[in-house]
């Protein structure tokens, strides 16, 4: 009984830990993705340091040089960036 509780606790901790790391990896990859997209659009940014999701494929990206952009897919299927 005691060992079962310990196993469950360990499982819960591992799940939380792995879920957190996966979420962090997604954030990092999204930030890198937005960094590359902003760079391709020729806008100054440096690196994206923070991302706030506004909707489906609609983000507010904060850059290391303090620029902020709204990055989204417009109805024409193009990546658009608006300076905020």
């Amino acid at each position, binding site marked *: 009984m005691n060992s079962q509780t310990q196993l469950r606790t360990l499982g819960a901790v591992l799940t939380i830990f792995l879920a957190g790391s996966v979420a962090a990896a997604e954030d990092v990859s999204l930030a890198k*993705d937005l960094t*590359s997209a902003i*760079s391709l659009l020729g806008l100054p940014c440096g690196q994206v340091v923070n991302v706030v999701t506004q909707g489906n494929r609609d983000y507010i990206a904060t850059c290391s040089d303090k620029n902020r952009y709204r990055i989204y897919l417009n109805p024409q299927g193009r990546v658009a960036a608006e300076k905020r």
Partner: protein
Amino acid sequence: MPVTHTIGLLFLLQVAGCVTISTTPATGALQGGTVVVEHLSPDAAQGRAGVAERSQNPAMPGGTVIVERLPPLPETAPVVVETPVTAEPPAKTAPPVIPAPATDIPPVTATPITSATVANKPAAKAPAKVIAPPVSAQLPQKPQAAAHAPPLALTVLEQQLKDTDAIGLFTKIALKNQIDDLLKRFKTHHEDGRKAPLTQLRQSYDQLLLKVNDVLKNGDPSLAAAIFNSREAIWTVLADPVKFAKL
């Protein structure tokens, strides 16, 4: 009292040992009139090549101490000083080896140069000046293994770009947007050449390839190299109206 004697003796022995250690190299080097060869720097040796400058050290009794100053390359160098002499020739031969890889790189920069300079400067001087800075920028981006890779077909490259995990969705879409824009400009050029000259298209094409390379070089260097190696093949397709029409 005996203890202090012992300590004193030990101290004396230690000091004596230090003294012998410190003097051994000096006397060993100069015993029996050994010759010390000092190498001069090339500029210092210019005025006296082949002429030995000798000086005697009066402080060393029992033998003449000769210090010869010789030019850097002499035939006497191998006799006395082994390691410095053998170390110098490789150092001198090394710099000529370095330019060899540089000749491998100009294709990277050659394409932007031709597009940038063809319009204004047909002279041969321009490439020599412009080549240097981009070479350093492109050097780490080109993997050695991919240098011999054959150019890939456009469709294969397109599929690999779609499939790669090195870039995210937004980057892929942004790239696709820019590729489509460039293809539209090529189409316009082939329909009416006056609107978009080929030199401008080449500049845009090179810039786009640089962007692709920048985006891919860290995450998927092999694909970046494949695209890099295929740039001329892709260009021939894009620039040729017949081949372009088949896309």
